[in-house]
């Protein structure tokens, strides 16, 4: 009895993922597209590499860079996926003017958007993998320690990614009821997370009030957990009181919370968008 809806959901996810891939990538040969996809993570990695190198007179060392590198690399999921989902709403609604057709088709918007996010997840994953390989092979960084359980690392990445996806759905809900130029607010939110979750610096240099905000973000714990798994020790003294198990629990609960909030929030935003006639809104002035 459950097989029907699950099969239907899988079909919607698969089709919208394929559509997302075509929209994102069919303007170029796949290898050119891949080059574009890896340019950003590699450039950011090298920026941080040179930043550490120019001040490395006795202060910074390879270990410090390794922490920065891991945080920056995995944060790519946040920037790509978070912005990608909400951007889909604007592109479909205003550029391609197809959002209204999703509503007249026998599919729900939420699974459609999750499917569209797959392309972003795939390109972000590629970027992360290339950056990790670059760090290992070119920059000579040690990724992982003898005790690293790689299956758990993959599990932690997926758990964090789930949180990112649900937060992306919350932003997509907001995008349904705001004008296109509010996109910069979504991009700004990503910048805010980049700053607050200590992706590229130890949390302990944040002012106290910002540190409190940082501790409210699931990504803070996510990056710390990944750093511990891949380097064998923590980066942020402020999180020193939490064991690895605590970080797992915090991350899992935050993900469940985000999921529940996203489902309620998105449904509410969708209702408002339909009531106010915003599904085919065009604000590209």
């Amino acid at each position, binding site marked *: 009895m459950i097989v029907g809806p699950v099969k239907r959901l899988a079909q919607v996810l698969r089709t919208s993922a394929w559509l997302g891939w075509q929209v994102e990538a069919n303007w170029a040969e796949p290898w050119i597209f891949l080059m*574009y996809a890896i*340019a*950003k993570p590699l450039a*950011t990695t090298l*920026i941080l590499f040179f930043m550490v190198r120019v001040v490395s007179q006795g*202060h910074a060392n390879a270990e410090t860079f390794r922490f920065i590198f891991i945080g920056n690399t995995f944060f790519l999921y946040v920037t790509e996926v978070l912005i990608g989902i909400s951007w889909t709403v604007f592109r479909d609604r205003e*550029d391609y003017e197809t959002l209204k057709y999703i509503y007249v088709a026998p599919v729900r918007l939420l699974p459609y958007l999750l499917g569209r996010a797959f392309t972003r997840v795939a390109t972000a994953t590629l970027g992360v993998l290339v950056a990790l390989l670059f760090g290992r092979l070119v920059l000579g960084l040690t990724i992982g320690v003898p005790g690293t359980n790689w299956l758990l690392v993959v599990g932690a990445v997926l758990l964090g990614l789930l949180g990112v996806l649900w937060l992306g759905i919350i932003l997509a809900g907001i995008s349904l009821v705001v004008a296109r130029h509010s996109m*910069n*607010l979504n991009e700004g939110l990503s*910048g805010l997370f980049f700053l607050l979750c200590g992706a590229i610096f130890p949390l302990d240099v944040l002012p106290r009030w910002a540190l409190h905000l940082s501790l409210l973000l699931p990504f803070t714990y996510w990056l710390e957990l990944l750093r511990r798994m891949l380097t064998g020790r923590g980066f942020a003294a402020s999180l020193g009181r939490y064991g690895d198990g605590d970080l797992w629990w915090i991350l899992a609960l935050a993900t469940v919370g985000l999921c529940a909030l996203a489902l309620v929030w998105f449904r509410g935003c969708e209702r408002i968008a339909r009531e106010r006639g915003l599904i085919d809104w065009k604000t590209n002035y």
Partner: protein
Amino acid sequence: MAPEDAARSSGLGQRLRMNLAAVYARASVRVKASFRERSWLLGETLFPFLAMSAFVLVYRGLRAPREYEGFVVLGGAMIAYWNNVIWGMASQFFWEREQGQLQLYLITPVSRMSILLGMALGGMAMTTTRAAAILTGGILLFHVSLPLERALPAFGLFLLTLGAAYSLGMILSSLFLLWGREVWHTATILQEPVYLLSGFYFPVSAMGVGIAIVGSILPVTLGLDGIRQVFYGPAAHGLLPVRWIPPIQIALTAIFLFVSAVSLRYMENLGKQEGRLTVRGD
């Protein structure tokens, strides 16, 4: 004055007035739009400041000398202009085409260069709020020191840099004229890799002279290098002697303007022949 000379002179004057009006009109749209939309103002000032702050905190976490934080703040302000060159100049004709406005520009009796100049001047004015927010925030929140007694020569170099950077934007604008969705991706690829190549967050000389010279094809690289040298002297680890930079920027501006005029004419003709100037949703 002979009647035909007077008529020619009056025609020239009228053309000049019309083109100046086009420059003003295109520029004023940008300036007014940027202040009319509050979310833009917020997005253009507060959020870029957040990203820049993260890089300041990297140096703070590394316990780097304080002038390095100044490098980041100056780089952050310059990034605002570079992003405007990419998204507000280079890819603008793509957006205009998507919105169906490009053909309106093409049927007006004004030079396309006037439209681009208007975009550039409006873009500079619009971006100055963002850059000013980054500089002010950097000085007030991070206590970054910018020796104000050296502000005048730094400002002169900054203006020359903007001239060259926006002239480069005009070239890119003509190249992007006929593109479809690759515009989006190309503009994106001109962000982080350029931040790296131009040394927005660290002295460009740190990458080695060879790479730094390659990066100097972009006017923002040398401009930023020169401005840092003016403010921080030898601590800026400059690439070229600062007195070399103004003539290079002036030469780059002249070359880029010439190339952009030729390129724009060529791409427009090509677009007409291939019927791509009115294609939308590509």
